């Protein structure tokens, strides 16, 4: 097991390195230049050149990359070309919004999807099971931003129960306001996520229900519920955990949309603004961080698989 973990970790590092190269190179294909953005429309061409030199954008690509990577390895993501602010500091500030948002949405989705998915499978021939299944189809079909707008209209504008975003300017210094501001966004993200997970939980459970080992267990005298609990769930969990890992990237993407709908000062909103301004040092830092998060989650999912399924532990 330890060998496998080490090997996976090595792979993770190599993947991150390749990702950093790709991110750096691809971003430089974007048309537009942050020096033009800094100079605006009244600066002279000479001034643009001076600004480009001042922010170091006139150096060669490899020199810029090495400089950036050198910093990243020591935890320093460089400074924003536009404002001169530390990228690391801004990333950690934005994470205080995005991380709780994504975590809350994931937990909420799991809490809803897993029990309902199993239920939908167990009752797949009954009206309640069919209704759950149809509902999850609907959940997958609606766009995230529409869910957000509807929740805002009902809960924030009409009923005034919760704020439409409005993360407090002091952040978590006011925990009640911070949590309240994240409720609707987290629910918005969780709706689509839960719908996807529900479908996978349902089909995985259904498959297990028809498996030979369940039939054997029932033949030994277990009820269907007992057989499912003792032998079924663990087997059904494997594909669901895989999907959860894949969906993590989708969830981060969804956060971009949700943060804009709810005007939350998170990673996604910052990323969109930075790309719009061609603040590439910040963009590549953000993308690398998100990539790392997705890769790490993939790694953890891999480990989870091996814990869930002893057959995988010996596999190389």
């Amino acid at each position, binding site marked *: 097991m330890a060998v496998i973990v080490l090997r996976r970790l090595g792979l993770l590092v190599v993947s991150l390195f390749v990702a950093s190269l790709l991110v750096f190179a691809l971003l430089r294909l974007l048309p537009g230049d942050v020096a033009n953005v800094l100079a605006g429309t009244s*600066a002279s061409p000479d*001034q643009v050149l001076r600004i480009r030199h001042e922010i170091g954008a006139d150096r060669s690509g490899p020199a810029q990359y090495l400089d950036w990577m050198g910093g990243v390895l020591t935890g320093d993501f460089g400074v924003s070309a536009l*404002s001169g602010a530390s990228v690391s500091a801004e990333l950690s500030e934005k994470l205080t919004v995005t991380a709780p948002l994504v975590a809350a949405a994931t937990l909420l989705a799991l809490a809803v999807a897993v029990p309902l998915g199993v239920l939908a499978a167990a009752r797949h021939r009954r009206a309640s099971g069919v209704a759950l299944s149809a509902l999850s189809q609907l959940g997958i079909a609606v766009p995230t931003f529409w869910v957000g707008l509807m929740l805002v209209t009902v809960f*924030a504008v009409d009923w005034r129960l919760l704020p439409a975003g409005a993360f407090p300017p002091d952040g978590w210094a006011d925990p009640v306001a911070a949590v309240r501001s994240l409720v609707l966004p987290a629910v918005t993200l969780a709706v689509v996520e839960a719908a996807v997970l529900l479908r996978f939980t349902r089909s995985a459970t259904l498959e297990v229900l028809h498996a030979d080992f369940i039939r054997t267990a029932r033949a030994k005298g277990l009820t269907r519920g007992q057989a499912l609990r003792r032998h079924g769930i663990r087997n059904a969990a494997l594909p669901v955990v895989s999907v959860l890992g894949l969906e993590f990237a989708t969830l981060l993407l969804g956060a971009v949309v949700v943060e804009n709908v709810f*005007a939350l000062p998170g990673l996604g909103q910052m990323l969109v603004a930075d790309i*719009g301004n061609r603040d590439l040092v910040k963009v590549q830092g953000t993308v690398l961080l998100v990539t790392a998060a997705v890769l790490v989650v993939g790694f953890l999912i891999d480990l989870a698989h091996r814990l869930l399924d002893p057959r995988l532990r010996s596999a190389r």
Partner: protein
Amino acid sequence: MRIRSFAVVAVVAGLALSACGSDGGGGGGGPASTGGRANPDATVTIGAVLEPTGLDITRTSGVAVGQILLGNVYEGLVKRDQKGVVSPALATSYRISPDGRTYTFTLADNAAFHDGAPVRAADVVSSLTQVIAPNSTNPHASDLASISAVSSPDPRTVVLTLTERDSGLLFNLTGPAGAIVRQGATGLDGRPDGTGPFRFDSWRRGDSITLVRNDAYRGPKAKVARVVFRYLTDPNAQNNAVRTGQVDIGAISDYDLVDTYRGNPKFTVAEGTTTDKFTLAFNQDRGPLADVRVRHAIRQGIDKDGLIKVLGAGTRIGSPVPPLDPWYSDLTSIDRYDPASARRLLAQAGHGGGLRLGLTIPNIYPPSIGDYVTSQLREIGITIDLRRVEFPAWLTDVYTKHDYDLSIVDHAEARDLAFYVKPGYYFGDRSPQARDLAKAGATAASDADRDTALRALARRYSEDAIADWLLLAKVRQVARVGVTGYPTDNISAIYDLSKIEVVKS
């Protein structure tokens, strides 16, 4: 990029810049003060759209940084109100020599920076010298290009020496180039330190900027304790924030939404003018647009009233001069909407069989603008290849490399008439007559001479069809009842917070 602060779209306090001066009058157009019931401890939250890219006013382009800092946190020697009228600020008085080449300013003797240090003439000299230095990276340096030297004969006096007369200098000194920062100040991005009625408090990037009252201010103190600018780029988020009371004042860009606030006793709606000129630029350096007949044809082929109807609001202008400028004259009769005449002109120019042109538009503007122009031009036989790009791509391709046929962008700057004759400007090369008129306007000895020259210049632009001015945007702000004194005109470049009051509730 100031150009970016366009308006219709987003707007927040967004649109326009300050226009020009003319008839005196203060800036505010919002509901008048309610008299003694104001709450001096109040916090006012303003919903804004365009967040500054940085807060270092000596280094940041775009109008957004000036909108919050100019006049509020930073002051210049002189200031302007929301209508563009110039008056003394850090200088209590100024004198202009008869030849117009020497400006002598007398500084207020009780002005101080927010950290308590008094404002000395040396601070003014160093601020302005940095802007005009040959290696200046101040994006607004060209505003002060006529200044050749800055000196201070005594600690209360600053003298500007000009290479030639500059009728626009005082106005330009009210802008970001004229902001006075402390000598040797560093770290202005994280901690702006000015002399105005508000102190900078904090910036939560992507979310909000907070200012607090400067209780040591030498003049009348601000009437609220704290002002928070909240940046809400999404128009729905902006609307929801106004409706749910998260912001006290917000600019609503969707004109249908504005109507839902009218007649609502909880809100007041204020409409203001802007200097946001949505401009259809012609690349006269290449292709069919080098032919003046084609340019006139395009101008005659677009019904501007129809576009204003599509967008919900706006004013027709026939030149880059908005009605508040002293040298405004109505030029909308040049190239009236006349598709038949447009087709004739195109045929004369040899394009009777049709013409194909590219149109590049930054994607920050409402898509309906490009769609409208495309369909109007199709009527007169011009096929448009529409290209929507991000703003930085527009800056590089169109503005810098001049790689375009037609382009639509919001020229948001106030009093930008002389820009268009700059050598290398993206419209293409200007006629020598236009250059002479711009020069005559800039170096005019009297306001009357200046206005005559600039009026002639605007007419020249329109008759030469160097561009088509589609419309001048309007801005509408919705405020919670009980909030008064907020500015309404030209709020994208300067947003005077000093008169805002909140009624005790």
